[in-house]
């Protein structure tokens, strides 16, 4: 759709993608940007794959992003970033954590057959690069730990995403939204957001 900016947010159940979406959506609402999301909520997603379709712009009615049209893809875990690659517009931007969480299904396979290899973040990033215009890979979990709370890896990734071209709101609007939605841990989450943003901004395109 004209004037649309969409991001497919994904990760593993428990990584906090609902809060990621809520913070960004609230920032959009307070900035007068129209936003529609299609979300996946907790429940049956125990340690399973989770995704949120996040769309901004006028005239959007579908909560689901049509394949091949998202400007960005934000993966809180590397394998999950690859899992949703069909939503990315060719030449779009991927922001992914270098964290790889091996699904129990793969551990089970490897237990039976030691020749079964675990995936690596490098392999995922090189595959992503064949479709994406740029891939920003960062160790969001370590950055979150350094910022004071491992649970804020979602805000680190939101910070990284905030440096994307066309990002619909200002960093200040996101920070205000964090303060509103997570009042009890605003400082650590804003710190994580800033760390992710700083990391992404100083990473040259294509790296």
């Amino acid at each position, binding site marked *: 759709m004209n004037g649309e900016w969409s991001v497919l947010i994904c990760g593993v159940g428990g990584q906090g993608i609902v809060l990621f979406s809520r913070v960004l959506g609230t920032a959009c609402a307070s900035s007068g940007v129209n936003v529609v*999301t299609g*979300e996946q909520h907790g*429940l049956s997603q125990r340690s399973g794959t989770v995704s949120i379709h996040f769309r901004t712009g006028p005239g959007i009615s579908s909560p689901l992003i049509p394949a091949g049209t998202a400007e960005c893809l934000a993966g809180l875990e590397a*394998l999950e970033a690859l899992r949703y690659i069909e939503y990315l517009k060719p030449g779009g931007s991927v922001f992914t954590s270098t964290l790889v*969480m091996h699904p129990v299904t793969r551990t089970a396979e490897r237990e039976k057959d030691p020749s079964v290899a*675990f995936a690596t973040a490098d392999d995922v990033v090189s595959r992503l690069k064949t479709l994406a215009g740029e891939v920003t890979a960062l160790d969001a979990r370590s950055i979150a730990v350094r910022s004071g709370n491992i649970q804020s890896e979602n805000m680190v990734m939101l910070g990284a995403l905030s440096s994307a071209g066309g990002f619909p709101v200002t960093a200040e609007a996101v920070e205000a939204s964090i303060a509103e939605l997570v009042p009890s841990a605003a400082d650590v989450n804003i710190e994580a957001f800033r760390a992710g943003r700083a990391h992404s901004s100083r990473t040259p395109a294509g790296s």
Partner: protein
Amino acid sequence: MSSSFLLSRDPVRAFVLCNEAIARSALEAGIRVYAGYPGSPTVELLEALLEAAPQAGLSAEISMNEKVALETAAGAAMSGMRALASVKSVGLNVASDTFFSLGYTGVTGGLVLVVADDPSAHSSQSEQDGRPYGPAAEVPLLEPCSPSDAFAMVKEAFRISEEFGVPVIMRTVTRVNHQSGVVQSGTLPERDPAKLSWPHKPARFVTVAASARQFHKDALERTSRIREAFESSPLNRVIPGEGRIGIVSAGAGFNYALEACALLGVNPPILKLGTVWPLPTRLVASFLSSLDTVVVVEELSPFLEEGVSLIAREAGVDLEVAGKRSGHFPSALEYDVEVVSGVLSSVFRVPPPVDFAAIRSRADELKKGLPSRPPTFCPGCPHRGSLSILREAMRGIRHVVASDIGCYSMASLEPLVWGDSVLAMGASVGIANGLSYCVAEKVVALMGDSTFFHAGLPGLVNAAYRDADFKLVILDNGVTAMTGQQMNPGTAPGDQPPGRRRIAPEDVVRAVGVEQVAIVDPYDRAAALPAVKEALSSPGFGVIVFRRDCALHADRSKRRRGESIPRSRVSPDACRNYHTCIRSFYCPAISLDDRGKAVIDRDLCDGCLECAELCPNSAIAHEEG
């Protein structure tokens, strides 16, 4: 969640989930009672109203099941107060007996029932389409497409309910309930906490013989009046367009249709229906009269399509209906812009501007070898230990396992793939009862604590009454875990909400005369295993309770108390690559290192030590310090 949006007396503009928009609108409509049972995708509606209840002067409860929830809301509405109930698709089946009678008697105060269907069965046992319940019970059915649409519709639903003295269904689907958008709220009304005086009208709500026959006649006549009123309902709108191909749609289908048209660059007239049953006959006929072809865009069954086709035939409008019966659309799985634009492309004879199939096939190439990630038991989940102990206890014993609805349903998924049936809430005990008449194997029924209270009790009494030869295993984690750890009667006394007392499952079991009751702790494998073996070995009906708090719930409690969560580690020297902690156990925190030794991700580990109890080399222990 967003309590300022729910509770602000003045209008608020906010980014909210549709379920929260429905909750706020119901509060603005002045509901006095809310009742529901947690089921995806309605959970956030239930949680929002439960959270808002004390400040909003609302009586809100998680009822034992959907039937009790609907009856609770109905009782309030019979008194003249407004009430809301919410159920997931299959929850209406549980409530259906009362629901049909309510369609006869109607109500006095407004009664709105939110029924959330789940196309693609994201978190349900079926793709059940709840819309046929409307005509079957003479209950009008509305359907919104977005948070703001739903927000407006709830208030209109209460108005309709009171104008016609009828319960109203607002039917949603997962992609509407779990859609967020920007919603502008209205003003919350002042609360009048006074109770009403029951308006004695003999037989007003009594459905027996002669009165049942009269109620039915009245309901049919009421439907005619509602159909007439829907002709001019603000919930239906025609979006003008060009050409002799038009679209009729509602709910989620409308969202996709609108965007698919924009994608294809076509601008047909679109009838967006909010009143899905009864259909406004003249409005639909008038819309169809200028068309050669109508495309009906709706997920699941051809419910609108059949109604539209009948209206066309009766009005003498000769046109093609492109829908499911014509083979254009599938009747299974949810739609999206890709599905709908594919059909519209062929009907409008416009080439698709995007080759979605090529995009997906290129992505599939990139994803070769990517492991699937099905949902699985959380680190620390007591079910992991319970199921492991139960399977170990039954090793060498031929057995059949009737399972049930809850987190433990995941035992049927990769990599465990265990259990012989999962049908419906509470069904395991009835299925096991039937199996026990017929199969030579040891029969075991599995059930969680919430399911036990929801629909397990009649099956329990049935089994106890005839001393059926099977064992009921209650996996008691103290909360309704799958839907987000809501409290239930079995929740520990210290965690119960104010004014609720604990009812232990085993007290109910013993009260109906069951003598074989074993209670074990899945974290204490050494003690549990022999106890479970012994319990399984005796003939007749017996109950085994595995008791340990849901790990997510327990962790939250620990954090609230300021306690840290211990982490476990594998000693690489002690680990001898037996992989007992991996095989048949499958914890997301346990993986393998390059040397084939088990390794625990300390960021995921819950420190439960269930794995340590399995390790023959005692290689796993809590981290030092």
